[in-house]
């Protein structure tokens, strides 16, 4: 059991990371990683939604009629996503408008539905909750890495605070405009996948 639990926690972070290995949730990871603040909120939202929906659906797993199971999953996931959106609107309005459609689109994020179908419907509530939680963290981790690189080199700031000193700009340093654009996020994800496969040889395909 202990080894299995360890696997549930560590797999989503590294060897079965939703973004770098399963290549899920790419769309939102390109869109919300221009600034670290947005990426953190998105990472937190996805983690909460994935963890709670896995928990709820795992609790319901033996009673759900098989023919309508996807619909039931969607109802639960959408409810949680709308709840998160409402809470953000009340407590972090600027970030909510900045993330715009991408909060709503968590509903269609493949990670959420994927983990429910693959894990939560066949496992007990606690392991399911942990599986959802760490898949969310695995997704969020990559988001944060991307956002740090993009905000630092694209705007010279982190969380809105100036990191690259003014003296650099005076000496002729310019922010890299390309890093701000979505294609650069895709290139960065490619680099992360490259590094990860270089380290974890078992992920390499022939």
């Amino acid at each position, binding site marked *: 059991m202990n080894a299995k639990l360890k696997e549930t926690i560590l797999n989503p972070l590294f060897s079965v990371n939703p973004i770098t290995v399963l290549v899920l949730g790419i769309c939102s990871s390109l869109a919300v990683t221009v600034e670290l603040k947005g990426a953190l909120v998105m990472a937190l939202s996805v983690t909460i939604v994935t963890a709670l929906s896995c928990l709820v659906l795992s609790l319901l797993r033996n009673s*759900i009629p098989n023919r309508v199971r996807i619909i039931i999953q969607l109802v639960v996931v959408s409810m949680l996503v709308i709840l998160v959106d409402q809470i953000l609107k009340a407590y972090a309005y600027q970030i909510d408008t900045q993330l715009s459609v991408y909060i709503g689109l968590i509903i269609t994020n493949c990670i959420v539905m994927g983990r429910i179908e693959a894990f939560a419907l066949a496992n007990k509530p606690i392991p399911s909750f942990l599986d959802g939680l760490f898949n969310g963290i695995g997704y969020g981790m990559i988001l944060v890495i991307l956002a740090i690189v993009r905000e630092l080199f694209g705007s010279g700031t982190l969380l809105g605070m100036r990191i690259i000193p003014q003296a650099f700009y005076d000496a002729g340093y310019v922010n890299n405009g390309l890093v701000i654009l979505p294609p650069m996020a895709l290139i960065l994800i490619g680099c992360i996948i490259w590094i990860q496969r270089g380290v974890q040889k078992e992920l390499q395909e022939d």
Partner: protein
Amino acid sequence: MNTNSNAYTIVYTSIIVILSAAILAIASQALKPRQDANIKADTISQMMTAAQFKTEGLSNDAIISLYKGAIKESFIIDNKGGKVSDMDKASSEIFSTSKLKAQNSILKRGKADQMKLPVYVFNKDGKDITVIPVYGAGLWGPIWGYLALEPDMKTLAGAFFNHESETPGLGAKIKDDPSFRARFVGKSIDLKAKPAFEIIKGGAGNKSNAIDAITGATMTSRGVGDAIADWLDLYKPYLTKAEE
């Protein structure tokens, strides 16, 4: 128990849906006051950004107190330019975006003479800056914004636009790209021309009452242009009167 029977499926699904709806309804009720305060502060910061006040990063309370300090007059007019009523300054009453939407649907029904049109006059560095709203349709949903006019009622001091669901990175630039609203500064409206202000695809050249459209967002740019032209038409009697 047979979880695959029709009756079970229907009852089960109904219970889940009703439960979810109840949870969302309770959450919505509980969070509404805070959301409304956020929306009001956001609306105020939109019109004040148009008038070139700095509202970025301010808290709701700071925005409200900035508004109270800067507002000189706020009132409602009709489309003949006559004043209908004053807005309550003490409670910093504003004309919300949903009210603008309602006015726009009155306009669309062809009953422009029944419309209520808000006017805000701010005191900015000793000058009277008049702010008026515009409302229209973008590519995917409504777009709206505020135009700020210098005391001559012709020159634009600034503008701010917002949208509900324009494409991020393209149409959404009307809000996200500060260089778009910067294009308005120093331009002027020409009430004798039709339209009084234009957004031109392919470049406005030296025209004083036009700006360039956004590349890749033709429909949104056209929507903004139409919204400005339509609403300036409504404010024309008032602006002409105020000009004299």
